């Protein structure tokens, strides 16, 4: 897969990417960041303009293609509705006193104060598990609560 790069005086730079089967993608990047994309089916055919992007759009598209795109999370928006509470994931080891007990009888809620909002088991997620749900070794408890409550939960699960 070769990329040819040339200067276009007064405009910017031109990149030509050879695709499988002989098609080519031509990208013209202007000095001001504007980006034009052309597609050529084969050597004989003429370029067809497929996109004309602003600098911002081109950057975003580029990061998506690169797999590096993520929507930045607004931390303030996330913490406000939860107040002091945080969400944590707690592993249930095989020697945990919780193994084999129903969630409602395990004392998770009454002793530590957290709410278990989901349980992940073998890649499946059971959200809002009811009090009769029986905890097994290897489960992953998703619990919401304050920092102290989360510490208490970890202690309970690990049998400390």
């Amino acid at each position, binding site marked *: 897969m070769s990329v040819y790069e*040339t*200067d*276009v*005086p*007064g*405009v910017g730079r*031109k990149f030509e990417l050879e695709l499988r089967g002989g098609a080519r993608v*031509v990208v*013209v990047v202007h*000095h*001001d960041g504007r980006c*034009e994309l*052309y597609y*050529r089916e084969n*050597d*004989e055919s*003429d*370029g*067809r*303009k497929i996109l004309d992007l602003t600098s911002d759009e081109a950057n975003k598209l580029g990061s998506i293609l690169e797999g590096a795109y993520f929507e930045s999370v607004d931390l303030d928006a996330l913490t406000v509705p939860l107040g002091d509470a945080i969400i944590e994931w707690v592993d249930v080891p095989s020697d945990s006193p919780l193994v084999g007990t129903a969630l409602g009888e395990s004392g998770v809620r009454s002793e530590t104060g957290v709410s278990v909002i989901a349980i992940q088991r073998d890649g499946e997620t059971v959200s809002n598990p009811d009090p009769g749900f029986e905890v097994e070794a290897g489960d992953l408890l998703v619990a919401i609560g304050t920092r102290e409550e989360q510490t208490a939960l970890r202690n309970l699960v690990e049998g400390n």
Partner: protein
Amino acid sequence: MAGTLLLEVGVMFAAIAGVGFLTARFELSPIPFYIGVGMLANEFVVGRLGLPYVTETAFVTVGAELGIVFLLFFLGLEFNLDRLLADRAHIGKAGAVDFGVNFGVGLVVGYLAFGAVIPAVLVAGIVYVSSSAVITKTLLDLGWIANPESTPMLGTLVFEDLVIAVYLAVVSAVVVGEGSLGATARSVGVAMGFILLLALLVYFGTALFERLLRTSSTEYFILRAVGVTVLLAGAALAVGVSEAVAAFFVGMAFSSTSAVHDLEVALSPLRDTFAAVFFFWIGLVTDPLSLFGVVGLLAVAVAVTTPTKLLTGFYGGRVYDLDARRSLRVGLGMVTRGEFSLIIGAVALAGAGATLTSTTAQRIYAFAVGYVLVMSILGTVLMQFAPHIESLLVRE
């Protein structure tokens, strides 16, 4: 203060903006329209009708001068010596044939029309050099930039740029000189000396220019770049050397610094503004009636140099192993002449009364204007209709 001067400048910019708006709608090159509106607003057209007209004030003249300086500055800034060297076998062949045929034909046409060498050389330059600005823009507008034909076109333009820088240096020294052989030799010597100095500056001055532009303020950055460029161009002109060539070298000096991209972004609005003033000025000092005086020469030049450019362009495409259809496109694309032909016309005008008689200078100038008006429109139209022309001329 300036009285109506500001109003005149306002009328000029508004007129330029107005025709720019029109050409954007019809997808044509704006250059002939800037010239046209300048011609319309001058003393020979609206002035003859007894209406208020735009005079050739010092502002317009200097603005046009700045347009030349910035056009050539950018040419130098984006001049790609590496590309020329890396691709020298192709570019050299295509460029040499382009120069030999078109400049040669121009010499013959010019000599037949004026019967003297210097006017012939000026005419040859005018018909030889294609318009980098218009051709590059049309390449983008039509999407040819993505196709193989753009490579020989851009390569040939780089060759022409270099030739025209040398040409302008010599010719402007000769034309503005005293006329006697000794004086001409002296002014050419001064020009060459000055250019040698500038070339040394390009070669050794990178660190200096780099330091000069090191500032986090856009304002200071632009002012320093403009200060250096206009100062050196002005100094060149003051000692009788082409300001255009000086600006070209200053641009080249900046091109090896890390600030190239920032310069392009920061200064292109200046270039666009003053280049438009330059084209407007070209129209402003042209009496449309003077075009009738050169109409015969114009007809001959257009009839001869359109096919020669087509052929040399076609050959250029062949040098790059393109098929007949694409090679024909290269030819069609190279037909457009523009800013450099006009700069040569302005050089002729500057030589009026020195090496050239005033009438000859005026005629050459009128020829340059008329020729560019025709060729810039013809060239863009040929490019737009290329698919039809191809299907007529090239059998699949």
